[in-house]
């Protein structure tokens, strides 16, 4: 059970950290769901074609960055509504993943997935935490908390928001790639369904703190893994157990939102920044 949690939580942690950074910059990217689907699929195909897990991770990383940048292109450069752009990218990402991945569904990888690498995933939180304390981290947080003041400090808010989306692309791309290449070792239609949005929620539940994201991710992984363990023991439908993590997110997010009297959320989360308009 513990090793199962550690394996499952690895990819999820990277995606959560990516979502966390982007939300801190004020970008609420629901399209990360599509990014994860695309990178998981592309990575699997590359790993299969090159007979090499590392080729898979590299390809997944590249695909993740490329797809995720569409978000900031549309929502930062063109100032379109973040939520709607996110929804559209979920559609496009899932569509691409299922079209591209179709011939490879059910095709086994020519190597056994080196699962042990997943145990190293928590190390990924170190650069994120370091960055948090750096000048770049400050700029990212300023862009999410008060972009108008940040601009007065000489920070280019669009540039910072693009950068945060790029970082999210790196993390979600790697996480998605790890999911199929290192963890499952097979590809199925919609294999990563829900992972992206779950990560968006866990980032919120961690109150946008990379330090809190570490335990929070593994707590949720327990909820994700629990149905598989429990269904052997308890006479409750597998499907009802499967719903547990999602109900958990709704309950905990509400609890956390109610308890957080002090405004911890980035004040400009999901709010478009247009230079010409004056801030409220």
């Amino acid at each position, binding site marked *: 059970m513990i090793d199962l949690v550690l394996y499952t939580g690895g990819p999820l942690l990277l995606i959560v950290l990516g979502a966390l950074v982007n939300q801190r910059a004020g970008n609420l990217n629901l399209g990360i769901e599509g990014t994860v689907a695309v990178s998981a699929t592309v990575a699997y195909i590359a790993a299969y074609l090159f007979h090499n897990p590392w080729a898979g991770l590299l390809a997944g990383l590249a695909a993740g960055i490329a797809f995720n940048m569409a978000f900031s292109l549309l929502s930062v*450069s063109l100032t379109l509504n973040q939520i709607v752009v996110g929804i559209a990218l979920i559609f496009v990402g899932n569509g691409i993943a299922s079209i591209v991945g179709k011939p490879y569904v059910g095709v086994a990888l020519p190597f056994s997935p080196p699962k042990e690498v997943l145990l190293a995933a928590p190390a990924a939180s170190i650069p994120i935490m370091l960055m948090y304390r750096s000048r770049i981290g400050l700029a990212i947080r300023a862009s999410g908390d008060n972009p108008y003041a940040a601009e007065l400090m000489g920070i280019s808010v669009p540039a910072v928001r693009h950068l945060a989306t790029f970082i999210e692309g790196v993390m979600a791309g790697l996480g998605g790639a790890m999911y199929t290449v290192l963890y499952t070792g097979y590809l199925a239609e919609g294999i990563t369904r829900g992972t992206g949005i779950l990560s968006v929620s866990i980032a919120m539940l961690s109150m946008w703190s990379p330090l809190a994201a570490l335990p929070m991710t593994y707590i949720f992984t327990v909820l994700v893994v629990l149905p598989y363990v429990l269904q052997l023991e308890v006479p409750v*439908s597998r499907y009802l157990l*499967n719903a547990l993590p999602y109900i958990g997110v709704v309950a905990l997010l509400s609890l956390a939102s109610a308890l957080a009297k002090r405004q911890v959320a980035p004040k400009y989360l999901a709010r478009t920044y247009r230079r010409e308009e004056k801030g409220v």
Partner: protein
Amino acid sequence: MWAFSVVVSPRERPSPTSGLVAALSVLSLIAFVVLLVSGSVEALPDMYIAALERPGQVLLVFVPVALSGIAGALAYRAGYWNIGMEGQLLMGAITCLWASLISGSTLVGVMAGALAGAAWGGITGVLRGYTGANEAVTTFMMNLVALQLLYYVSYGALRDPSVKGFPYTYPVPSTVDPLAAAGAVVALAVAVHVLLNYTGLGLSFKVMGDGVEVARYAGIDIARTTILASSISGTLAGIGGALELAAFQGFLQPGFSPGYGYIGIAASWLGFLKPLWVLASSAFVALTYVGIDGLRVGYGVPTALAYAAMGMIIVGVLVGILVYRYRIRIVL
């Protein structure tokens, strides 16, 4: 850091031509992708001809998509980011089946389905109103919960043992006429149109959609208005699922909805978040969806292409609206 920047500034006068050009170029992009994937020029006209040859199938997609689209239009106008139409629709269908099996009346089932949609949508509205939990996240989570419940009733609770080998539930006691279902959709669209444009509640929805600060200043009870918007939106989606079951599919199964609630989001933006326009956009979306599905047989085009197309339609409309109101310049 960046060699250029994009400057978006308001136009003095809106430009319909620019908006139209932007939207059309995205539509041609979709056409191009369809051509690329199918590898044949005839695929494009064939797609819509195939769809028109299957009016029953188009109606089957239209009803849940249009109701989800109207549900989305109402919620988005109120600034409530409901992306839970899929779950509300599924709960509407599940409850409709359950209630109609108990009562023996499909009509009672449809009404129960409407209530279930209201409740499923209302939960996230209450949470938003009183705790501030982000509804874009909670409504999506509720979709995933509803999907598991659909699996639960299909594989277990309401499975019809007389159907061997397939996870099909018991059928509804009687079916509703598909045209009556479509008529109900039109009536509901008119009702929401009236609600939004000619009532005080509709006005408070729209004021809230313009900004919570403004709404609070205008003396609007944010929590109460949010809950109303979420549950009315959920009711519409719930009816969509109940009608899909009662008028078209007749029973539930794991693949009951290929994402009608999500496709409805595309329809609501394509219809400029106006209920009557959403009727038209849903018809177009349903034709496109059934058309691409039809290409699967003749051209080997995967159904997933339909989803990618829906996403591009949303972006296209957004870009169209943007350049209609704003001037976009690239500054080197």
